[in-house]
């Protein structure tokens, strides 16, 4: 069957009343948490995982999760534009230009270009996902354990080296996650590791606990200590001035180029293990700033600076799904949670997924189209509702987040010890924020660490313990070399400066932590 026919089948699955309902729930929840500061798509999906334990089929769950992911991106742009608080870090560029536009009385135009740009980019990138996913899956069939090992190293290293401002702190955060992943009984030998003889730890630390602890509880403590418990100043919406979908002719003309280019940046960087949406949004912003017709307006509210990064942000998600679905390789914290969700349903993302669970995969891809149509319909007309959400008093909001966090943990196991473990992890997360350790590498480390060890031991079993097996296969070797290069990449400007005999400025290129 061709990909197109399978995609049509996917639409058939999604367009049933039940699944449409889950899509609506997903995009609404996603927009809500995207609008709210302090809680992102990773936590939301983690909180909902226990709810899906009772689901018979994984398809509605994944339709809902995809809606949450996309919804959070749409919602994040609203907060950035109206409140200047990026709800998630990939919206930082939007916060700069979009908020300036809002201050100049162009809030609606900024919101519209963000929403329509997200929509356009999502459509383009989802088409690309549908086209490339299956061929890459076929390619991945020939991958061996050593290649998977090398790919995971590459993913971990690139994410760690690009996120946050210090490689040492990033690596420490990553290893913390890997160490947490060791806790429990070793899957192959059955030996207890790092359990301190406590049976409560034999099953390991559930990923849900880790994510809720690090993100929801850690973030709440951090916000409290920083005194950010008062709501910000929401920019008022100006009266509708006409134009098509709040954009006048000139604004349409200035937006479409950045949308397409943003999608062009977003998708490939999402596919590559480059840590999600930060890098492409940043690239899109810089590109538009250099090249666009509205160059002089940058920093004062240039529409290109909203249109491009928002498109890149959304396009990168479909990109992130490529390694996740075809290789089982998450490259952002939210993708890592989605991988955990696959495990709950005893599904192993990877080359076989397209054969064994083709219904699910194509329903998921089709739901991305459907979800984005819903989001476009939800966002602009309901904007007044989302503005109301921004006015929720912060103490009540964070108290509510803690209630839901505890509920999510309790629903996993019903054990008090698990709740206490998550709180302890939350305190660690708080200290990590205080001392500028990035959070996303810890999540990826905890999820990929056990996989990494599994592939490592599997490869060595085949080679009879010969360690050279990782460098004797050209594919594995070249991926490992890429990983080594990725470690050096952020220091490139510094190295070039030194080579040219100039004093080096700054320490390394870095991008925001993502949840």
């Amino acid at each position, binding site marked *: 069957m061709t990909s197109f026919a399978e995609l049509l089948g996917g639409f058939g699955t999604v367009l049933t009343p039940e699944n449409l309902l889950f899509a609506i729930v997903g995009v609404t929840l996603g927009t809500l948490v995207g609008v709210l500061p302090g809680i992102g798509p990773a936590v939301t999906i983690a909180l909902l995982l226990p709810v899906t334990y*009772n689901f018979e089929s994984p398809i509605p769950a994944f339709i809902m999760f995809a809606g949450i992911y996309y919804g959070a991106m749409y919602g994040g742009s609203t907060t950035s534009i109206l409140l*200047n608080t990026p709800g998630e*870090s990939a919206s*930082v560029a939007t*916060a*700069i230009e979009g908020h300036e536009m809002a201050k100049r009385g162009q809030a609606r135009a900024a919101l519209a270009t963000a929403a329509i740009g997200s929509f356009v980019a999502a459509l383009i990138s989802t088409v690309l996902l549908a086209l490339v996913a299956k061929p890459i899956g076929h390619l991945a069939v020939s991958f061996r354990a050593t290649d998977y090992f090398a790919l995971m190293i590459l993913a971990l290293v690139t994410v760690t080296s690009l996120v*946050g*401002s210090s490689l*040492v702190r990033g690596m*420490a955060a990553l*290893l913390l996650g*890997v*160490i947490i992943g*060791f806790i429990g009984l*070793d899957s192959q*030998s059955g*030996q*207890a*590791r*790092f359990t301190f003889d406590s049976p409560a730890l034999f099953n390991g630390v559930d990923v849900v606990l880790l994510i809720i602890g690090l993100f929801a*509880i850690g973030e*709440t403590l951090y916000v*409290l*200590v*920083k*005194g*950010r*418990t*008062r709501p*910000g100043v929401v920019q008022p919406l100006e009266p509708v001035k006409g134009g098509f979908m709040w954009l006048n002719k000139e604004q349409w003309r200035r937006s479409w180029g950045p949308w397409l280019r943003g999608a062009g940046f977003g998708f490939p960087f999402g596919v590559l293990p480059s840590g999600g949406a930060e890098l492409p949004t940043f690239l899109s*912003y810089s590109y538009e700033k250099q090249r666009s017709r509205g160059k002089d307006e*940058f*920093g004062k509210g240039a529409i290109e600076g909203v249109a491009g990064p928002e498109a890149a942000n959304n396009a990168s998600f479909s990109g992130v799904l490529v390694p996740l679905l075809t290789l089982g390789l998450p490259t952002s914290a939210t993708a890592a949670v989605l991988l955990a969700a696959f495990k709950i349903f005893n599904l192993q993302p990877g080359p076989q997924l397209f054969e064994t669970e083709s219904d699910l995969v194509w329903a998921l891809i089709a739901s991305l189209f459907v979800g984005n149509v819903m989001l476009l319909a939800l966002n602009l007309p309901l904007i007044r509702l989302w503005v109301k959400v921004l006015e929720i*008093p912060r*103490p*009540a909001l*964070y*108290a*509510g987040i803690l*209630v839901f966090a*505890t*509920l999510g943990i*309790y629903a996993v196991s019903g054990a*008090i010890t698990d*709740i*206490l473990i998550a*709180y302890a992890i939350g*305190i660690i997360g708080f200290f990590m*924020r*205080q*001392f500028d350790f*990035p959070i996303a590498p810890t999540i990826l480390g905890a999820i990929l660490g056990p996989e990494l*060890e599994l592939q*490592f031991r599997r490869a*060595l079993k085949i080679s009879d*313990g010969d360690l050279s097996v990782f460098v004797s296969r050209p594919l594995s070797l070249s991926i490992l070399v890429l990983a080594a290069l990725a470690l050096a990449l952020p220091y490139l400007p510094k190295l070039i400066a030194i080579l040219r005999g100039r004093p080096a400025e*700054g320490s390394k*290129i*870095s991008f*925001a932590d993502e949840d």
Partner: protein
Amino acid sequence: MSSPDSTGSAPEDLGGRSTAGPAVNELDEDHSSTSTLGPFLVGGFMLVVGLVLLQQTFKINAEGFDPLGPKFFPLIVICLWLLLSVLYLLQHTLRVVRHRTGLAAERFDHMLGAGALVVLLVVYAYVLDPLGYWIATSIFFVGSARAMGSRNLARDIVIGIGLALLVYLSFTRALNVHLPEGVLGL
């Protein structure tokens, strides 16, 4: 609260800056700490944790450090962790000596509220089963909102009781997730 004008920092900051707080924030206050003690404590703690885990690695029940066995991989990771702890301490020490400012660290303000919140969380975990979800959550909500600076008790009580009841009913009745009924026997 910062004025709206003070928030638009230069877009050049976008990529180059450390991102504990993104380039733009609703509060532009500087929270960085002037004390250099913090990172020393963090590094020291990382070292201690590493050493404890190293000892735990040797306690894993397996013969030798066969790369195929359960001990080899943890050993490598813990050694790397110890190396990173030392590097972190070294970086910080060098910075303090050279520039008199250490690695990134933020001030610990409002610690009373944070401490109260942690205590509330732990108490909440322990009373959840005996008191039941509805009562425990209502009390926890009011307490934690207050710890975070809310001064509108009536509003918090109404939201707390309503939210707890809504969650309890929707999870136990609609989603079939078990939550403790406690003393009320709802």
